[in-house]
């Protein structure tokens, strides 16, 4: 069985495999965290690959290499790059040498091998039939359980291939990208002014985080700064979205262990918040609000004050609920020790967000790379080391409290003034920005000329975190998978784009 399990081991640095550049290091010598890597075309149409690292400074660190020919994989040094390089291979047709697994990631059996949408013409792409082979675990008593893409519930589509012995999961292979909509390509040629609506449709329940990340990237590219009032209102929207998402996840955890009272209460508190948002801001989720340069609309201080009041009341109820749930022995029994993600794996795969903070990684974009109104406030970052379902539940409860406080402080001292400044688009513009979405670090790069976009790259936290799921699920019983999956709460659409 150990031999079979070796298939799951992360590739390790070997001497005959050299990265195309030396991986940047932190002050203490540890390798820097990979934020994203993506392809782009230079002015002459040449392919380039840009790598973005977090080197512990507020600014991200970027390296770019030409990629007209094959490039060397950085996976042996930085396992977190595995999916990124597969996507690069699919989208740009860049040959990557030394990658342990270059099977198609984004495109399935219906897509022809020789069409790479971010460099090729994609008009009338023919439907193809090609094969895909799952990694097969062999041995006595091993059974495969295939789940999805259509799941038993109101869930996004994705495929899970479990190899189990009895109840116990030996290996899980993910096959995602069922909701791949070619979003990055759709940005190309759109007016930069009209890009936020597409960003909002990358992951619907995190729509405002996507919109703000996109807008900040455009603002950075054009040297614009959103006015103070817009920045403060954006913070309120972002924290409200986080609250709604975390409370919903907590309810989902209750559902998955059959604690129906907790689940019903959480859905009710979530709905209270959505209705408060409708009353005060005219929208349940904050779509059609953010735009490059600030916000498309302003709300008077009474509306924002009453929103903040509603948040206070809801969070008070949620706190009470969370206390009851987390102190119930049968819940503790299910949450504790389930789906442990080891800190070493979390580091190797450069995991972000709640999942990272529950596995001992101390990171949060709001504190480490502050943006907008977060520059003026202190963001507490809860960190736990157990890495199990319970740790992820507790981090969410802590963050709900912190979000409520951030909303209260911001709403209590809302700056006056306009919410929108005009953005002057230069002949060529390029900028990047990151936001701490409810699921973690969300990174946007935008490039364009004359007001039109030529490239938009989206690194969603779900894309980063999905590869960690098989490691958290291994050695658990298969019946716990829904619970572990919910505790990660990753977006399929955000990952697939």
């Amino acid at each position, binding site marked *: 069985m150990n031999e079979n399990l070796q298939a799951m081991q992360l590739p390790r640095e070997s001497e005959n495999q050299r990265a195309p550049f030396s991986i940047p290091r932190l002050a203490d010598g540890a390798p820097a965290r990979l934020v994203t890597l993506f392809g782009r075309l230079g002015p002459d149409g040449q392919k380039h690959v840009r790598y973005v690292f977090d080197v512990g400074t507020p600014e991200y660190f970027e390296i770019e290499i030409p990629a007209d020919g094959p490039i060397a994989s950085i996976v042996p040094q930085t396992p977190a790059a595995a999916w990124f390089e597969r996507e690069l291979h699919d989208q740009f047709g860049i040959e990557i040498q030394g990658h342990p697994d270059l099977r198609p990631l984004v*495109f399935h059996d219906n897509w022809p091998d020789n069409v790479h949408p971010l460099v090729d013409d994609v008009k009338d792409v023919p439907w193809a039939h090609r094969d895909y082979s799952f990694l097969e675990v062999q041995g006595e008593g091993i059974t495969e359980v295939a789940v999805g*893409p259509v799941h038993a*519930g109101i869930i996004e589509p994705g495929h899970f291939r479990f190899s189990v012995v009895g109840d116990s999961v030996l290996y899980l292979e993910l096959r995602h990208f069922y909701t791949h909509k070619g979003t990055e390509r*759709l940005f190309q040629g759109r007016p930069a002014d009209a890009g936020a609506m597409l960003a*909002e449709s990358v992951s*619907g329940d995190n729509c405002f985080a996507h919109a703000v990340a996109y807008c900040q990237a455009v603002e950075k590219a054009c040297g614009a700064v959103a006015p103070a009032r817009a920045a403060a209102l954006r913070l309120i929207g972002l924290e409200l979205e986080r609250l709604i998402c975390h409370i*919903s996840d907590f309810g989902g955890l209750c559902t998955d262990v059959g604690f129906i009272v907790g689940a019903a209460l959480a*859905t009710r508190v979530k709905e209270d918040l959505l209705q408060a948002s409708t009353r005060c801001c005219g929208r349940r989720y904050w*779509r059609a609000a953010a735009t490059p340069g600030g916000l*498309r609309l302003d709300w008077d201080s009474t509306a924002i004050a009453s929103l903040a009041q509603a948040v206070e009341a809801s969070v008070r109820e949620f706190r009470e609920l969370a206390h009851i749930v987390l102190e119930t022995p049968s819940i503790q029994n299910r949450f504790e020790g389930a789906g442990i993600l080891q800190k070493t794996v979390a580091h190797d795969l450069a995991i972000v967000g709640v999942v990272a903070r529950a596995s001992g990684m101390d990171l949060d974009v709001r504190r480490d790379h502050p943006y907008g109104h977060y520059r003026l406030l202190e963001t507490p970052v809860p960190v736990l080391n157990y890495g199990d379902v319970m740790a992820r539940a507790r981090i969410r409860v802590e963050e709900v409290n912190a979000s409520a406080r951030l909303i209260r402080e911001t709403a209590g001292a809302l700056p006056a003034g306009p919410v929108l400044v005009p953005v002057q688009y230069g002949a060529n513009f390029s900028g990047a920005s990151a936001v701490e979405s409810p699921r973690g670090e969300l990174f946007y790069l935008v490039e364009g000329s004359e007001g039109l976009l030529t490239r938009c790259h989206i690194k969603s936290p779900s894309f980063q975190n999905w590869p960690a799921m098989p490691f958290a699920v291994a050695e658990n019983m298969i019946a716990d998978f829904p619970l572990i999956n919910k505790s990660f709460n990753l977006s399929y659409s955000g990952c697939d784009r």
Partner: protein
Amino acid sequence: MILNVIQRSLRQSSHLIPVEALLENCKGSRMPDVQPERLTADIASCVVAACPTGALATEDFNGRKCLRLSYGHCIGCGGCVEVGNGALVPATSFRWTGVSKEQLVRRWDLDRRVEMTDETPQPEAVRTEVQRLLGRALNIRQLDAGSCNGCEAEITALTNPYYDLERFGIHFVASPKHADMLLVTGPVTRNMTEAVRATYEAVPAPKLVVAVGACGCSGGLFAGSHAVAGAVDAVIPVDRYIPGCPPTPSMILSGILEVLGRRGLK
């Protein structure tokens, strides 16, 4: 501990929203409506230019110049309201949910400044057999064909204590084989096309298919993408449409009741 839970449950009052308050309610949906008396040809061309999905268009209809609004294409971006000079406003009530594709379209005469009434007869036959067989119960299988999860979030809300879909005898089921209705969201991506067809085939006849959201109705912003096969009706037959981006729980619930011919029901 369990006593605390019971005590807490007993303290809760009912949050149920009465059905009268849900029908035609579109608060928070950002759907537009037209004030025909303020509509001019100039405003019409402005709002058409501002619309990112082609939901608004000017056309000749029955020999009259008119503004056409297709709710199935509208993503509620509010662009038309910003430039519409009061002729386009956020809708205060909304009844174009759970309707046929033709019924999603409204037209306003640009000279007479009135809404043009639709004289095409409304198709009825699809629903009768299902209604006859089911009485008041309905099993729904939700199918995500590639959505951004915005519609899923709102469909999930139907089971919370405010909307409580179960009070109408309507349940979400896990298998398409147990379903009477498929509630399909999202543009159908290339990668989901086969699964969408297979799911449709697995639902026993007679079956209803309802497309939900701008993407499900028309492809929305994703129409024409190389990775998208099209709107839901490009892949499987669709009976009724629930527009919105995303539609609010009230709109989805009203739409389902409309499909079942139960809107008048208390």
